[in-house]
């Protein structure tokens, strides 16, 4: 489905890295670096400790940065559980999983 020539296995680490960078910069997580975020760490609650406002912000970030539209019915699912689950979803559903130009907008 995506427009790169990379396989899913090649894409996943790149997508995870990009996701972590986006979360740190766009959610103003000043006390942590992208490298410190565990791939399987819980994003909400215990773990990274993000809240409901971060959740809806992530939906918009994914839209802008990866062109994925998370449907209402998917929001409650495990897709938001960790970096891994998000990265998997992006690789499965995004037309450009390496990111878009709008993701480079200055914060």
């Amino acid at each position, binding site marked *: 489905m995506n427009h790169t020539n990379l396989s899913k296995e090649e894409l996943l680490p790149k997508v995870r890295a990009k996701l972590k960078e986006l979360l740190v910069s766009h959610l103003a997580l000043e006390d942590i670096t992208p490298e410190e975020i565990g791939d399987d760490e819980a994003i909400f609650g215990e773990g990274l400790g993000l809240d*409901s406002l971060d959740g809806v912000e992530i939906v918009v970030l994914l839209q802008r940065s990866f062109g994925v539209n998370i449907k209402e019915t998917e929001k409650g699912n495990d897709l938001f559980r960790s970096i891994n689950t998000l990265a998997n979803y992006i690789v499965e559903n995004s037309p450009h999983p390496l990111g878009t130009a709008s993701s480079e907008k200055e914060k």
Partner: protein
Amino acid sequence: MGAISSPGLNTAETLDSFRAARSRPGHLTLFESALDLPVFEVTRFEAAHPYSDGVRTRELASHAAREALADAALDLAALKTTSVGICLGTTVASQLNDLAFYRDYKTIGCASMAPVKRYLKGNLAEAVGAELGIQAITATVTNACSSGADAIAVGAQWIEAGLCDIVLAGGADELNRVPLCGFHALGLSSPFPCKPFDKHRRGLNLGEGAGILVLESPAHAMSRGHRPALTLCGYGSACDAYHLTAPHPDGRGLRTALGHALELAGFHPGDIAFVNAHGTGTQDNDLIEGCTLAAVFGPALPMLSTKGYTGHTLGAAGGLEAVFTGLALREGWLPPGIGFVEQDERIPITPLREHTKIHGRFALSTSVGFGGNNTALLIGLTRGEIG
């Protein structure tokens, strides 16, 4: 009392819509947006000016204020010799959010100062005072969705403190692109007409309007031989102190506000005939508000749920719903809640499914806002009045 919103240009038309259980959500016509969400516009309102940020709110407010003054048998000439206050809640009218202004600034580096000058002339309460030609103490409350109710509480306190004999108090907001985009981004907007408290609710619809009460000191009313049918018996307000956009899961602020309103009025929960709930149609609000109301009053308390008729009118909501509460007490009946079909098993209390007679003379209206504000107004039939 004066009210203008989707169900009607005045209280009489509003009651007609409630009698017929008629709701008119529609597509956006006031301005352009890529978002095709159901909204509750006041479609037959003949505004003096074409749609423009903030100006329509002032016109809606003035319109409702005029009705309220007429209902209170007060003319503008009489107000010249009275100490008057105007306290109004709003969101849109207090923001410098003129998109055309900002677009010009961003793209060509300069912009007309007309919207800025209009904004700097004062704010909503001051502008309404100027439009009506009333010399008044004016204040504009910007407490998000509880603004209208909070403004009424402030107005009551001005009278108690002896600052004014009469206060025009309530709220107004026009439909506006900024909250339309914002609530959608928060995932709080429903793509179909809202279903407050329903199991399958998907969020709110925005609406617009103004709801205004004329509050009067008992001494002043007596001095001019006027007997208001309704009394503001109590009010309470408390903050969840929890989160910018999410309510406290235990509804603690709402409980405190309800308790305070009852205490101020000297009442118990059993004295309340019904509650006008905030009931926006969002998952969180309806769950927490519903559970809290059920815990305080019991699940059998009749609930007036009106956002299925009006949409969420933001700063106007608290004012409009105070008017609807007063109207219901005066008329003696409650309309059914629109959009409610199936009970959410987590919420023990439900909106009414059919027109219901009221038994009792006192009611509460609750407003719950962004930032965790919770306000309750306790309104009653004045002693001697029968509903």
